[in-house]
Structures are given as structure tokens and as C-alpha cells.
């Protein structure tokens, strides 16, 4: 997943990630170096992405996904053609501010209803294979 120069800007890490020193690559953008987006993903990259997304992808299907995802990224790469210098990123279609809710408990206990379709419960708890910390 890191075969090309990553380009997350320094600003994304400051000041929040005070204790993670800014990553070395962050400086790239300061010098306005241009990058070419990766044009292909290989099966190894697919495995890494699938792990992050918690998807079990059979080894024999990784190749196929690699081709599909690469084709999609090729389509996406058309964005590079347009200059977006100074454009404010648009996170949302409407220019509204967050509305606030009064602090009142309104939700009654509906555990029985919510757990009726749960795959595995015991003693009111949702059960999963043991988590090791």
C-alpha cells in the first residue's frame, strides 16, 4: 500500500497528533511536488486493504479484485486533470450548521426487542469469541 509517495498534508496531523511526530512524507506537499496516483493495485495490496476492511478474500480471488479495483482507480484518476488549488473541500451538499438536541433521556429500555435478532447473547450481553487485550 505504500508503493507511491503518500500525500497527506502536515496540517492533518497538527495539532491533534501531538505525540506522533509529523510523518516524513508530510513535507513533500510543502514543496508542491506532484505525484502520480498509483495506477495498479496488486494482490498483496488487496490483502492489506481487505484486512483493514475485515473482509476474508480468498487468495485466488485477490487477482480479480486487484484488476477491478485498479480499473476503478484508473477511472478515478481523471480527477487529477482538474486544478483544485485553493478550492474548499465540500463535505456536504447543504450549507447548514449542526442542530442541537435538548439533553433529555427519551429512549426507554428495549433490550428484549433489540436482542431478539442478535446472533448470540447471554445474560443480556452480546457474545463474541474471546478478545485478547
Amino acid at each position, binding site marked *: 500500500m505504500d508503493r507511491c509517495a503518500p500525500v*497527506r498534508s502536515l496540517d492533518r496531523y497538527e495539532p491533534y497528533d501531538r505525540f506522533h511526530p509529523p510523518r516524513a512524507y508530510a513535507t513533500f506537499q510543502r514543496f508542491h511536488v506532484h505525484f502520480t496516483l498509483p495506477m495498479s493495485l496488486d494482490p498483496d495490496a488487496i490483502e492489506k*486493504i*481487505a484486512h483493514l476492511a*475485515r*473482509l*476474508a478474500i480468498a487468495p485466488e480471488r485477490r487477482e480479480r*479484485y486487484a484488476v477491478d*479495483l485498479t480499473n476503478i482507480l484508473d477511472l478515478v484518476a481523471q480527477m487529477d486533470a482538474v486544478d483544485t488549488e485553493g478550492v474548499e*473541500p465540500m463535505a456536504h451538499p*447543504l450549507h447548514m450548521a449542526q442542530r442541537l438536541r435538548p439533553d433529555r433521556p427519551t429512549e426507554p429500555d428495549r433490550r428484549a426487542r433489540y436482542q431478539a435478532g442478535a446472533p448470540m447473547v447471554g445474560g443480556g450481553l452480546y457474545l463474541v469469541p474471546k478478545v485478547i487485550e
Partner: protein
Amino acid sequence: MENKSIAQLAADLRLRTYSSVELTRHYLERIERLDSRLNSFISVAGEAALASAERADLALKSGDVGPLTGIPIAHKDIFCTQGFKTSCGSRMLDDFIAPYDATLVERLAAAGAVMLGKTNMDEFAMGSSNETSFYGPVTNPWDQTRVPGGSSGGSAAAVAARLCPAATGTDTGGSIRQPASLCGVTGIKPTYGRCSRWGMIAFASSLDQAGVLARSAADAAFLLDEMAGFDPRDSTSADVPVPDYVDALDDDIAGLRIGLPKEYFGAGLDSGVAASIHDAISEYERLGARISEISLPNSPLSVPVYYVVAPAECSSNLARYDGVRYGYRCGHPADLEDLYKRSRAEGFGAEVQRRIMIGTYVLSAGYYDAYYLKAQKVRQLIADDFRRAFEQVDVIMGPTTPTTAFPLGAKTDDPVAMYLNDIYTIAANLAGLPAISVPVEPAEGLPVGLQIVGDYFQEARLLNLAHRYQHVTHWHQAAPAGFE
């Protein structure tokens, strides 16, 4: 009965020409008899539908009723319906009985509408052909070797085949308009925030919007009147007054300025489709509208932008399906990671997994700026194009889709070719604008849709324009053979 408009059905119900129970039974019988050819319903409400029809009949007797009292409708299976299966077209939610109602379901029920059942759809609304559904593809009533479009393909096919008078749908990149166009029905995607998203299973939260598929703009207006409006449970719901859409249907359109974006009439547009669209635009000229060419220079980038933004949001929205609290859980998980990975790999189909992976990738460390942030910036440019356009014109018209319905299986092996089907519809989602698809003259026997995009909260204008066209043409009344 099944060819009547909602206004006619409502009038008949009031006059007791037939009862809501009889009307509901009629539609249930049609579904029973005809849907095996279409696969447009995932589940049919049957007894529950008749029970609500009975309640509607009581209300009709008491006289205190609205236009939708006793009118059967169908919901796309993306809307949560309390106590009733809500699958989102996915194996992941095959067993999921929603413990609550979506706002739209609640509102339409409160207006007296009778839910006939839940319509088929692309899995988690990801698809343009209704072929990614866990419940199998839906076929197009006009030609059952062809796709109905997607993701609201079940709703579009059911309405076209007169299996219900109208149905709800959702539109993230064209999922109402594209199947409406391919099935020859009227489909409106309102402004982002116009209809509540509460209880509507999320695909891409900043793009998803609920709307209606119906046989005419007038029918759609009756439903939208009940659906639109502020919902305190949805932070992105717009607190903007809702006009009476039915009232505005007959407004005069003389002098209205229509813009035709040159980017929507270029290479890739089927010549038959283009001819039908131009004919429809001429009709508007005859109705007194003024036509001019405009440009939306960044709109060709809407597909690339969409395939960053939508997968990114979907990769996060679909992380909740982990086999822990509800939904599919794999058999005998070896450990927690195995539980996650196999439940998700077995519960989701290939297209959903593709999009989750693309979304995961474009948000991951090192790629965020190049993909996600870049896409958000281009999205702004696309929205700016529209803002400038609406300084010159009142509405924008063009084809809804580049071609008519394509054969089943034609594009299932080529995701990118499939994605390009939404080339004309996606920009409205990115900008959050309302848009409608109106059936115009078919091309080689297959339906063609005219897309009209309006400025923010101009749904009344879109319905009015569609209605005026439908007043002087009959394309929207045509029924597919075998479903008359």
C-alpha cells in the same frame, strides 16, 4: 383499476366504488400472478396489508381522510419497517426484522397509505442494474431479458408493471432516476435533506436521498407531499417549509428558461435516446419555455468523484455489519477476526465488497489527500458549475441515461462500464440538487427518460414541468405488454 391515477383511486375510494381492501387485494393478486416474471418484490405484506386496508376503510367511512388513505404503495427494502423484514437486498440482513420504522414509512402510514411489500434492490443500493441483489436480479417489464436499472429497480419495475400505484426509492447516484428512465416511469430525487434519512439504511450519507417512483408526476406529488419535511432525528434534514406539490402541478411554464448542458449531449449518448430527448425539449418549447445551451464543465468528472466519495462513506457506513449485534454471522468463528472477516465476506456480495475496499483504500493513510480530499474539492467545483448555471436558467434538461435498458449480464463483469451508466445522474447527488426523470418517446420500443434538474428545493417546479409535459403527451401512460 391498476391503470388509474392516485387521484382517481382516491376519488373512487371516497365514493366507495371499491374499498381499500378490494383495491389492496387486487394489487396483491397482481403481484402473486405477475411478479414471478419480474422478481420486483423481496417480501409481500399480505395479511398486514389487508389489515391496514381495513383500517383505511374505517377511516374512509368516518370521512376524515387525506388523498393517500387506503392507497396501496410499496417501499424499497432499504427503509426500515418495524416488525417486518428489512433486507437491503443483502444476505447480511436476510434475517433482519427492523425494530423500528423509518420516518418515511411512518409518515406514509400516518397518511393512510397501505404497504403492499418491500421491493427488490441492488445490495445496499450499490448497483445500476438490480443484478447485485442477494434475491436475484429484477427484470425489466418492457423486455424481460433486460435490466430495470438500479438500485431502485424493484420499485421501478413494480410501478411500470402496475403491481403498485407508486413506490418509494432512494437515489445516491441515480438510483431513482436511472431505473425510472429504463422502466418508463416518473422518478423524483428531491433536494438532499428534503426527506428524512432516519431509518433509511445508509449507503453514502452525504449523497443518499429518498424519493418516489410513480406513473406520473401528479402521483409522485401526492406521495412527496407526505414524505417531505423536517425531521429532528436526522441532523442533515432541512428545516425548510414544504410547499404543496399537488397545488403547483398546473402552474404556467411560459417563459421558463431551460438550459441544455452541452456535456450531456456528447459522445456516448445513444442516437435514439438523443432523438427522443430533443423531441421532448421541442414539446417544452411549444409550451412556451425558452431553451438555451449551457455548460457544466466539471460534470464529466462526476463519476470519478462519486467513486471516491460514495465508497469512502460506504466503507465506514457498512462497518457496523460485523456479525455481533444483528445480521449475518458466519458459522463457527475461530476467533474474533475470523468472525468479522468471514461474516462480512459471506454476508456481502462482490460489488459491495469492491466498494468497501475502494473506500477503505482512498481513506487510508497516505492516500486521503490524493483521493478523498481531492474528490471533495472537485465536488465543490461541480456544485459551483450548477450555481452558475442557475444564474442563467431555471432548470436544466438532458437525458437521464446514455442508453436504454441493456441486457441482463451485459455489464456485470465490468464494474466501470456499469458505473458509466450514471454519468448524467450523479452530478445532482454530488451537488445535492433535486432532479426528476420523466418518460418520453421510447427508442426502439424501450423507455427513455428526460432528466430535469432544478435549483435547491425546487421540487414543485420539477413536478410542475413534468406534469405539464404529461398533460400534452401520453408516453407515461404506456403499459408494458403482459402487464396492461
